[in-house]
Structures are given as structure tokens and as C-alpha cells.
């Protein structure tokens, strides 16, 4: 068995063991799960929302995970389950802060905020900064599709829009971001 495969298997075993322990109330096992997954969750949240919300929302994701562990039946990997939970928490946050659906759909010029900036500033931004400066709708579609690998149909369901809107936002986001590719 190649070493990387063995490491992956062992890691999956220990995560599965920890998720079972955590579900029975073992906070130490849950802390190990937190340490393993916090970077992925925090990065997802930071990219989907504003950076200053990332810590609070990440904490919220893990607290909800603890509360919902009894519903995790091990049919998918714990990381997949947690990731989907994080996406749901982010989307719920998006609604709760009043980003109404109409604004998302009718955002005819979603990239005004980016394209109006001076060219020199744009070129000085790195890719992550440029991503963070995208309007929320375009940024969330880009993160979900190009970074996280969701399909347009899934994104449309999650965001409550039609797939065509998701495709359009993705294209606008890519067009803006191409100026920030490292040269």
C-alpha cells in the first residue's frame, strides 16, 4: 500500500473514530475534529462572507456541528458533512444580514465595485484580495463553483436563483479576476 494511501486511510479512520466519540459527547475528540478542519471551514467562510465575520461564523459552524452530530450517520466523510453544514450556515447568515434575493438577481452590474477602481490598484491586489473585492453574488458563485466544485444547478438551489443567473455571475467574476492573475 503506498504511504500516502495509508496515511489517508489512517486519517480517515481516526476522523471516523473521533466523529463517533464526539457524537457520544467527547469534547476532546471534537476538538481534534476542529483542529483538523478549522482551516478549511474558516477559509470557506472568509471567502464567502466578509473577512471580519469569518471568526464568528466559523465558531457558529462548529457549535452547530456539535449540536447536529447525532444526525451524522457516517454515510459521507465527516469533512464533507461539515463542509455542507458550513455552506448552509454561510447562506443563512447571508439572508439574516438582509441580502435579499431580489438584489442578488437584479444586480445588473455586479462588478462595478471592482472595475471602477484604478488599474494600478487592481494590478497590485493579489488573487485572494481581488476575490474578496467582488460583489457578494459573484463572489459566492465563483467560490462555490470554481473553488469548491459545486454545479450550477446545486448553486442555484442553494442561492434561490435560476442556473442562468449562476452562470452569468460566474462569468462576470472570472472576467474581473483575470486582471489579478499573478504575472
Amino acid at each position, binding site marked *: 500500500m503506498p504511504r500516502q494511501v495509508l496515511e489517508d486511510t489512517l486519517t480517515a479512520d481516526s476522523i471516523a473514530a473521533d466523529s463517533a466519540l464526539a457524537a457520544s459527547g467527547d469534547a476532546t475528540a471534537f476538538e481534534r475534529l476542529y483542529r483538523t478542519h478549522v482551516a478549511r471551514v474558516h477559509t470557506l467562510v472568509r471567502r464567502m462572507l466578509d473577512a471580519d465575520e469569518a471568526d464568528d461564523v466559523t465558531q457558529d459552524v462548529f457549535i452547530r456541528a456539535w449540536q447536529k452530530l447525532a444526525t451524522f450517520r457516517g454515510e459521507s466523510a465527516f469533512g464533507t458533512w461539515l463542509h455542507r453544514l458550513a455552506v448552509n450556515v454561510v447562506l443563512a447568515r447571508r439572508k439574516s444580514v438582509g441580502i435579499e434575493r431580489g438584489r442578488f438577481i437584479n444586480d445588473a452590474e455586479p462588478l462595478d465595485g471592482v472595475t471602477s477602481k484604478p488599474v494600478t490598484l487592481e494590478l497590485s491586489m493579489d488573487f485572494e484580495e481581488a476575490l474578496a473585492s467582488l460583489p457578494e453574488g459573484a463572489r459566492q458563485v465563483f467560490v462555490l463553483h470554481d473553488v469548491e466544485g459545486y454545479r450550477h444547478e446545486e448553486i442555484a438551489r442553494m442561492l434561490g436563483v435560476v442556473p442562468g443567473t449562476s452562470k452569468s455571475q460566474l462569468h462576470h467574476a472570472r472576467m474581473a479576476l*483575470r486582471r489579478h492573475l499573478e504575472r
Partner: protein
Amino acid sequence: MNDQWTTRLSEYIDGELDRTEQAALEAHLATCGQCYATLGELRQVVARAKSLSDTPPATDLWMEIAREIRREKAPARRDRLVRRRFSLTVGQLLAASIALVLLSGGGAWLALQPLASSEPTRFGGSTPRPRVGQVVTWTGHTDAAIADLQTALTQNEKRLDTATVRIVRENLAIIDRAIADARVALQKDPGNAYLNLHLANTMRRKVELLRRVNDMAAARS
């Protein structure tokens, strides 16, 4: 930069145009240098997105999370079971306790069956059915199998590289802690079906891990 095809470039990259549209766009790309250049840049954006790495938060968020979950004491499963227990009648409690005892022994026995069938020299067809409520008894055969496999691993691990041995030991320690926790919990609540199954599954995981590592070491001899 606003010809009719520019807005379709992302769909082209993602393979979402039908065959006719794709052929028409490719014909356009052959004659339009600007669209061709834009297509290359968009492809770089897609590749860059896939290569982004995760970074942890600047501060450790665990303390706040730990404080919150301490208030909860345990996940919802335990709360629901406790609430339900107090809502049962005496007759229901009696019936439930009998079912729980049966499930406890039977569940653990079922969970251990794959071990019995794959270890013929030790378990060959005569694995006794665990006695209800005697937690220590039903783990006896698995304890023996684990002891044998650990002895074999001690002899074999010199064939493995240091990093692999370290990872194996770390994971065995994690599993051992889980087994120890389950045994402590079962001492307080021997008839708990969930704990019995959890212990059986964790012990099975340990056996599987030891077997895999021994197999790997044997393959290198």
C-alpha cells in the same frame, strides 16, 4: 470585448455549450484574437481557483467553541434519549429495558461477526454468543486477537519506515483512547446498546488497522 461570443466563453470552458454552439464559437475563436486571448486568461483564472490553499484563522477559536459546547454538555442524541426516558410508563420501561439488553448483546455479537469469519485459526466457527450484560466477556476474543496482532506488529514494524510507524502509533493511540473511554462508560451503564456497538466497532477498527499494517510489513519482507 463585447461581441456576442465573449459572454459564452465561460460556458465553453465548462463544457456547457451544445455541439452547434461549440462549433460556432470555435470558428469565431479562429478569427478573433481578442476572444482567443480572453479565453486563455479565463482558463488561468479557473486553474488559479483550484490551486488556492486553505489558511487557519489568525487566532485560536477553540476556547469560545469549547465554552459554548460545555453549556450543551452533549450533542442532541443524548438529550433526546434522556427526554424520552422520562416520558415512558413503567410497563414501557420494562419492555424497553428487556429490548435494550437483547440489543446490547446481539448488536455486539453481530458487530464482531466479520472478525470471526476472517480469523479461522482463533475464531473458527465456535465464537460463543456474548452473554447479556457481561461486557468484559464478549470482548475477550477480540482482546486476544488484538494482542496477537500487536505482537506481530512489534516484530514486523522494523520493516516499515519511521514516518509510517509514527502515524500507525498515533492512530493506535487514538483508537485505544476511544476503547478506554467506551469501557469506562460501559462500567457505569453495561446494558447501553449504543456503547456496546461503539466499543465493538472501535475494536474492529483496531483489528483492521493492525491487519493492514502487518500485511503491508509482510509485503516488504
